[in-house]
């Protein structure tokens, strides 16, 4: 009898190509071997972005899981070598698109280390403020998409509703909802507009009411618990061997948070906890992330109290971004005072403005590695300068890239549905993975 599946022998055994047709006919030809290779292709509603999972299934159990990435490779690192150091911010911000402020801050900290300059205190506080708002937004997206992947569609609508509030605040401060290009080497591009502080306080008040609602919605829910408990287990040894950092490592019990152990941007002066869990499974990661949202809210509160008036860009005119933006009759642009100054009175200001915008500042030769704690783990930037106005090499050590290696370890031996939960609990962002 004819089957609809063509078969061929390979070194791995018999391979059947199924292109429609009666399943019984195919399976009867295949014998007792229940092993199937299933491709969860790059376009799939439940793989967190363009991730391809090649799963070898024995019935419903995953015997081997391989991740194939590269479907979003953008060549950002190479592109940055042809742009000035300041323009590098706009590239770096699009790597991990759910936490753009973190990418920018890590890069700017690296550039500032190479330059050897100190950023004004107000700029640092604004950076911390924006970073923590971004962390909340990122974790909310994780809740939303993770929930959607596991079938909890209300989590999606709720998570995105809260995220819109965070994005509103970020839009007031930076001008854009995503990919802000706000944090620049030397400080931040503009000061907080009037009314921003009140808006942030409003955000905190609203989140204080809404986050417990999400907690209630999911934490006590038996289906959510069953989907995540004892699923995607990875203990501390496994995490360290695979280089996994971030909520996954903290869910395994190790309180490794770069904000505490290698503080940057003044984090040592803020009072917050590092939530950990010793469950080392998807459930632990969920608890850790929700707790992190609450800790971030604490940090934002403290940051708001530290905002003292001051400059937001480094004083050195040869490095600090020269623009003074203001809202004019036709929108946001150079303030007329600034234009009067550079065109009328100060020759140096004009030269600085011209040189900085066309050529960019020069960074002394050398290399640095700066790491910050992004929502997904250790975000490191290895910046190499050859003394010029363009980065010689910028490599971003993305947490999602390294964390995704643990997907195989987490999925193998579990069920197919657990593989989805595992990838969801790793929270990879493919823009960061592929860069």
């Amino acid at each position, binding site marked *: 009898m004819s089957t609809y599946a063509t078969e061929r022998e390979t070194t791995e055994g018999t391979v059947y190509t199924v292109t429609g047709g009666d399943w019984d006919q195919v399976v009867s030809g295949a014998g007792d071997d229940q092993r199937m290779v299933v491709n969860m292709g790059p376009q799939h509603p439940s793989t967190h972005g363009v991730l391809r999972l090649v799963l070898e299934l024995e019935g419903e159990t995953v015997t081997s899981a391989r991740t194939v*990435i*590269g479907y979003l*490779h953008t*060549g950002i*690192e*190479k*592109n940055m*070598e*042809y*742009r000035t150091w300041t323009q590098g911010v706009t590239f770096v911000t699009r790597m991990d698109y759910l936490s753009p402020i973190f990418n920018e801050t890590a890069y700017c900290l690296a550039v500032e*280390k*190479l330059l*050897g300059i100190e950023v004004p205190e107000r700029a640092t506080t604004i950076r911390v403020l924006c970073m923590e708002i971004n962390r909340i937004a990122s974790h909310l997206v994780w809740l939303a998409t993770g929930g959607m992947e596991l079938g909890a569609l209300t989590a999606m609508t709720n998570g995105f509703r809260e995220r819109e509030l965070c994005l509103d605040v970020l839009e007031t401060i930076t001008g854009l909802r995503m990919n802000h290009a706000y944090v620049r080497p030397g400080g931040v591009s503009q000061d907080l507009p009037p009314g921003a502080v009140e808006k942030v306080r409003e955000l905190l008040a609203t989140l204080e009411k809404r986050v417990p609602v999400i907690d209630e919605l999911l934490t006590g829910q038996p289906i959510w618990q069953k989907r995540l408990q004892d699923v995607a287990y990875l203990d501390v040894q496994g995490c*360290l*061997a*695979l*280089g*996994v*950092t971030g909520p996954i490592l903290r869910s395994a019990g*190790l309180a*490794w948070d770069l904000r505490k*152990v*290698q503080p940057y941007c003044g984090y040592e002066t803020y009072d917050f906890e590092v939530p950990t869990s010793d469950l080392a499974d998807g459930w632990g990661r969920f608890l850790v992330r929700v707790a992190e949202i609450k800790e971030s809210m604490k940090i934002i509160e403290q940051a708001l109290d530290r905002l003292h008036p001051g400059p937001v860009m480094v004083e050195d005119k040869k490095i600090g971004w020269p623009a003074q933006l203001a809202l004019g009759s036709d929108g946001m642009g150079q303030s007329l005072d600034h234009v009067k100054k550079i065109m009328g009175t100060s020759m140096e200001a004009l030269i600085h403005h011209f040189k900085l915008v*066309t*050529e*960019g500042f020069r960074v002394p*030769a*050398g*290399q*640095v*590695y700066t*790491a910050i704690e992004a929502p997904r783990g*250790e975000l*490191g930037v*290895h910046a*190499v300068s*050859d*003394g*010029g*106005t*363009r980065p*010689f*090499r910028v*490599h971003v*050590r993305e947490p999602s*890239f*390294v964390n*995704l*290696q643990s997907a195989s370890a987490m999925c193998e031996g579990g069920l197919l549905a657990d593989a989805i939960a595992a990838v969801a609990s790793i929270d990879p962002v493919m823009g960061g993975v*592929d*860069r």
Partner: protein
Amino acid sequence: MSESGFEGKAQVSPGGEHEPAGDVTHGGTAPTPSAVTPPATRPGQGSDMFGATFGSDTSGFGGLVKSKPAPVASAKPYGGWFDEATDALEAAWPGFGENVLRVVVDRGELTLHVKPAAVLDIARVLRDDPNLRFELLSSVSGVDYPAEETRLHAVYHFTSMTFRRRLRVEAAVTVEDPHIPSVCPVYPTADFQERETWDMFGIVFDGHPALTRILMPDDWVGHPQRKDYPLGGIPVEYKGASIPPPDERRSYA
């Protein structure tokens, strides 16, 4: 499956193509920049001030190329915890003397330049020695220094969680013989990262379980992040002018 002929371009250096200086249109529009890429545009090559006699190079640097000096080795004492760490490494690793070519302390960071063959040994010592305890390999990446003989550098960043320290190890290989032992047996986290370094730079890590392309399509030819690989953009037409991709434009630096 790769689309346009970028694999053909991989072998041609951007400065190699010469075309007559572009049409200079009068009446307001910018002259078409010639396809000659002044060496000042090529990253990694510095240049110095002399009169411009060369195509449309308005940088004032007449194409003079000056290569950057190699990082200067630091002298002992290095300061801070660096002395303690290097002494501990020297005590624990007999191969320290002949394999560590240079120790550089710069901007608060310690870099050890080692011979490529010793990378696996030093990794093992860094992880296992109780005074060093670098449990986490944060990052493996590559850098291409075209001015040097050993162009391709593999850079390893180690993090010690116990002592809260960071250390960088750098190994340099030539393009003709780009072999470095893989540190996967010691740090399994290097798996994806070494694959990326192979994909982008062409450094072959011996002993890696599955060294295949990870970011580019499997049948891509060439290693994109090398300096002699073009950026590969296309010219953009905008308001009548055609703007070449960033690696072929005039340099203002």
